[in-house]
């Protein structure tokens, strides 16, 4: 693997032990990477190697293992930060992933700086993790939540952006790629427009970072949250990029060991960023595993990763539309990512998921933590197939053939 334009998917598949699983008598066809990706041997080995040879608490022990652990943990930080284009590792805070990262911004920044009547502008395609933290903060601060609506093809409707973004807007929270619709949003334009009215921009990049080369410095976003487990890394890995000035100004969300400089009876002082946000023993092995996942993705080349996603998404859209599935979100693979939500004829997504499981095919069925999207398109749920570096056209074919089986089963 040397960053070729095209992924050698057959070779990649050999790195993923779980793809050898047989499910209900069929080879596993895993089409739920938007929920969580599978993990290559290289990542599993990195976690195992850490526990087998280097385990100790980080930033504490005055002994060899403690130093090794700290070095592995901080090495992972620099690597992961660089992966999203952050040149200063101090601007990357480790968290359990996107949800914790956005909560950290909504509490640490939002509760300190938002006042009654200030506006937080979100979008109707946000995952609940970029809505609920702001609702909690709005309850405390009196800030008002507003939403950018969606067009019928699942794009942000920016026709009224001029009034939605105004002098009261203090935060724009926006997904880089919708987990429910696949839509890739025009981040550059939105960030520029938000900065023009003095708002900070929080990007939910949970779906974007696994598939796209991004640079937080070029984007000039204020905050960017992502999850390691959706990009080949372990669960509870990932973090928050934030401009240093925001991290300096924010309050910590968690207090406790290791985040303090000095503790007195009535107050404490904080460590320098990013450590003031990292209370207690952190998920050291997981973040080290995410470092290995970043190495793996860099070796594939993110341009090739995106090209593969686009190619297989285009194929899946063609196949699904050809069998009269209703596809939600953009139909142009170039304008979207590889999370494809659909409804197949009269088969309820839950029934579809159960029938597909009997064929070894794993898809997601439900509201995808995006109930605003479901309501906008007047559907209680959708089925969703999502793709990553290990998925093949053959697997799309298995999916489509299984759809026909489901329909025969449930046809009225």
């Amino acid at each position, binding site marked *: 693997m040397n960053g070729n334009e095209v992924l050698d998917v057959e070779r990649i598949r050999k790195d993923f032990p779980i793809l050898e699983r047989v499910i*209900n008598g069929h080879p596993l066809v895993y089409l739920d990477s938007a929920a969580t990706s599978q993990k290559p041997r290289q990542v599993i080995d990195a976690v195992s190697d850490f526990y087998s040879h280097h385990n100790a608490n980080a930033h504490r022990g005055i002994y060899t293992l403690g130093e090794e652990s700290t070095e592995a943990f901080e090495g992972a930080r620099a690597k992961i930060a660089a992966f999203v284009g952050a040149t200063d590792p101090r601007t990357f805070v480790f968290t359990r992933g996107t949800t914790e990262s956005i909560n950290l911004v909504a509490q640490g920044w939002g509760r300190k700086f938002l006042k009654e009547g200030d506006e937080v502008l979100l979008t109707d395609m946000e995952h609940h993790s970029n809505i609920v933290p702001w609702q909690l903060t709005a309850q405390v601060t009196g800030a008002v939540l507003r939403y950018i609506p969606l067009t019928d093809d699942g794009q942000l409707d920016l026709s009224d952006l001029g009034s939605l973004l105004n002098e009261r807007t203090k935060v724009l929270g926006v997904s880089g790629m919708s987990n429910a619709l696949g839509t890739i949003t025009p981040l550059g334009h939105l960030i520029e427009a938000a900065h023009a009215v003095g708002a900070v921009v929080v990007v939910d990049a949970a779906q974007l970072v696994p598939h796209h080369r991004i640079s937080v410095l070029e984007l000039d976003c204020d905050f960017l949250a992502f999850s390691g487990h959706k990009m080949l890394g372990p669960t509870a890995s990932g973090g928050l990029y934030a401009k240093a000035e925001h991290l300096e100004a924010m309050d910590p969300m968690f207090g406790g060991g290791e985040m303090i400089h000095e503790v007195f009876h009535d107050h404490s002082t904080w460590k320098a960023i990013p450590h003031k946000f990292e209370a207690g023993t952190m998920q050291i092995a997981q973040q080290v595993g995410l470092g290995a996942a970043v190495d793996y993705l860099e070796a594939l080349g993110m341009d090739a990763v995106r090209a593969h996603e686009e190619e297989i998404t285009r194929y899946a859209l063609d196949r699904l539309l050809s069998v009269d599935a209703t596809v939600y979100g953009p139909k142009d693979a170039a304008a979207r990512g590889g999370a494809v939500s659909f409804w197949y004829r009269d088969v*309820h*997504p*839950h*029934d579809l998921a*159960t*029938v597909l*499981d*009997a064929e070894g095919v794993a898809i997601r*069925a*439900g*509201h995808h933590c995006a*109930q605003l999207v*479901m309501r906008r398109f007047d*559907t*209680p*749920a959708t089925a969703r197939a999502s793709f990553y570096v290990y998925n093949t056209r053959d697997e799309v074919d298995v999916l489509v053939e299984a759809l026909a089986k489901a329909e025969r*089963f*449930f046809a*009225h």
Partner: protein
Amino acid sequence: MALDDIYKETILDHYKNPRNKRELPGAVVTCTRNNPLCGDEITVSANLEDGNLLEVTFQGAGCSISQSSASMMTESVGGKPIEDAMALAADVRGMLAGEVDPDEDAFGDLVALKGVVKYPIRIKCAVLAWDVLQEAVSGGGAARGAAAH
């Protein structure tokens, strides 16, 4: 895991040809509940008299398990004393929890739901109609036409 473990003929029959799926004009109790996780929604309406359920109907949309369970329920509780219907509801829940071995005579078509035990995430679908019925007769949604979420 074979598909006919869960999708018994009886279930598919009730899904494709639901019984008592209609409005019940002038119903004494009506209650609507949904399961936001999957978007299943069920309204149960019933007429009561002297502690007995008379007619029981349902309306709604959702997966085959939620809709067939509702259909079977209306058939099995219609005309029964409320007390018996609630006892059956408890037994159905027990069966779906794997704790009650159904009495085939008392259960009738409902035995078909037994296979849902193997699909833990679908148990909520099967139980929804029974929750709505219980809520309706216990007064939770008793005000005529009340729809709560």
